[in-house]
């Protein structure tokens, strides 16, 4: 079996070889012995890579997978080479599909920093939501041109509620 894995901008080809019980990986042309076991206390794996011990949580996210390691949460995409080709013809990934900013927690919208038509840069602040007695700047991941604003200031929002829609520049 063979996958393309994209993580933090880096892309790698991972191939699996099974030899009886054991599973070997080949990544970036390097052969790796990896022992991979699910732990009994969660959605989490113990991973021994050439003896190095890692505990890694892998869970499904809005886009692809989410991997939690050493307290850091990293979005990852895993695809078959075929899927990958189709996608590239389709013109690539998320950014191309446009972005919708969601409320990460229940709270109240205290400030809208953008209007329809504005160009939003990646990591630019778009909305300020007050929750847990704190004002929180919600920033865009990919950014783009604001196509729709779905909430008003002072309105209460719940977790996951869409706030602002953006489409990629020139898309």
């Amino acid at each position, binding site marked *: 079996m063979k996958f393309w894995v994209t993580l933090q901008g880096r892309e790698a080809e991972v191939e699996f070889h099974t030899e009886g019980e054991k599973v070997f990986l080949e990544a970036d042309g390097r052969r790796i012995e990896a022992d991979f076991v699910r732990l009994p206390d969660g959605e989490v794996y113990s991973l021994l890579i050439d003896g190095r011990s890692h505990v890694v949580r892998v869970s499904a996210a809005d886009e692809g997978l989410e991997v939690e*390691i050493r307290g850091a949460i990293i979005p990852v995409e895993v695809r078959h080479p075929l899927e990958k080709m189709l996608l590239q013809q389709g013109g690539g990934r998320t950014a191309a599909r446009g972005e919708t900013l969601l409320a990460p927690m229940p709270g109240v919208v205290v400030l809208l920093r953008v209007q329809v038509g504005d160009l939003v840069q990646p990591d630019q602040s778009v909305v300020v939501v007050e*929750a847990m007695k704190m004002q929180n700047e919600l920033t865009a991941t990919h950014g783009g041109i604001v196509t729709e604003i779905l909430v008003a200031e002072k309105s209460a929002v719940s977790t996951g509620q869409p706030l602002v829609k953006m489409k990629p520049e020139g898309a």
Partner: protein
Amino acid sequence: MARIQRVLVANRGEIACRVIRTCRELGLTSIAIFSEPDRTALHVLMADEAYPVGPGPSRESYLNMERVLEVARRARADAIHPGYGFFAENEEFARACDAAGIVFIGPLPETIAALGDKLAAREVATRAGVPIVPGSPGAVTTLDEVKEFARTIGYPIMLKAAAGGGGKGMRVVRSDAALDAAWDLTRGEAKAAFGDDRMFVERYIERPRHIEAQILADGTGRVAFLGERECSVQRRHQKLLEETPSPAFDAATRKAFGEASIRIAKAVGYRSAGTVEFIVDEQNQFYFLEVNTRLQVEHPVTEMVTGLDLVAEQLRVADGLPLSFGDDTPTPRGWSMEARIIAEDPARNFMPSVGRIERVRFPQGPGVRNDAGVYRGYEVPVFYDSLLSKLVVWAPDREQCRRRMLRALDEFVLEGPHHNIAFHGWLLSHPEFAKGNLSTRFLEEHFEPGVLRPGPEASNAALLAAALHEREERLRVNVAREDATNTGSAWKWRGRARSGR
């Protein structure tokens, strides 16, 4: 002969658990209160008794004075411990307890009132001969007054609009030369912003440290100084990591600092545990800020080095007993740090996070103390602050303490909401932190979200784990598909059986 037997804890989360623990050790009955979403909160499970006080929002439950006092009466509580926050520094509540014949575990209502008024508190300090940040006693109206003032306290100074606030109408001035321009500019701004161009002048401290004194007083004039706590690492005035002693203090400074704190406590006839907060400049000159008339979140670091139980001491004093150690205050031993484990996302501007605790494993082993308010499966409610746990460590010296804290953070498993464990790992590993070069501007100067990105080994492991996971998923799917087919055929069979009738 103790009078207090039944203690109602008018709080929630880790501090409620903290107080309940001491009650149990002292053989007192602990009584918890809980809001609707807190029915399965840890403090409810730990207490001897627990009673509801209303819906989620604090105002309707934990801050509902009538309701809380009614529950206290119904439960025959003879004392109330307020923890921190909520009613901890509420004069009215303290009076209401007295009126209801219930002991309020804390200072006298008058003390709370007197020290709650910041200006009054500064006067107390001044009368007690404790320095406050030098500033113009009143508004200054002429440039010469300012220059005169600057000569006495020296540059840099801060020009502040008397009517100002929210950072507007404020300007730092570093020399006489710069003053003229700054003066006109700032007054102009003030005029425009507030229609009022009266100015205050104050000494400007570039890199202030926040250092506070833990005091304990029995109310009969005996006041003990239990060492200082450095709480300079903050974000939006929220403390993130505290330690004792302060790496900034030498014995002489500490002595003066302790004496100053004791003078203030004595000046107001303080009772119970309290904290005198100071701002400290680069020359280690300390200036009084305010007094917190309650137990602090960070009190455990003081407990680690003194071996005292501050809640037990509060209960003794509330019971009219002297402090457990009488006149010989225990000498602090070694070093202690506390990391506040908070449900927030440091990579996204420390945004608060909520959700279910999917998996948690607290650090253990030598020199490690946990004070958690959560457990596996618990849903962090949106109504209250996002402190999940306090990780406290002790070691003989600061460097060993720092390494132990790093070890403990490394061992800490917490899955579900976003949290700041990795952030603390970065902080403790920072060379300036290791050197003890701290100020309230530490994050502003050193932190940017990129620093939290995992290293190459971790991200490589993440990459392989993702691939291995995906593989397992696909294998599982295939198995499932086969099952599906089987059911399919089973269907056909059943169909035949029917038509066979």
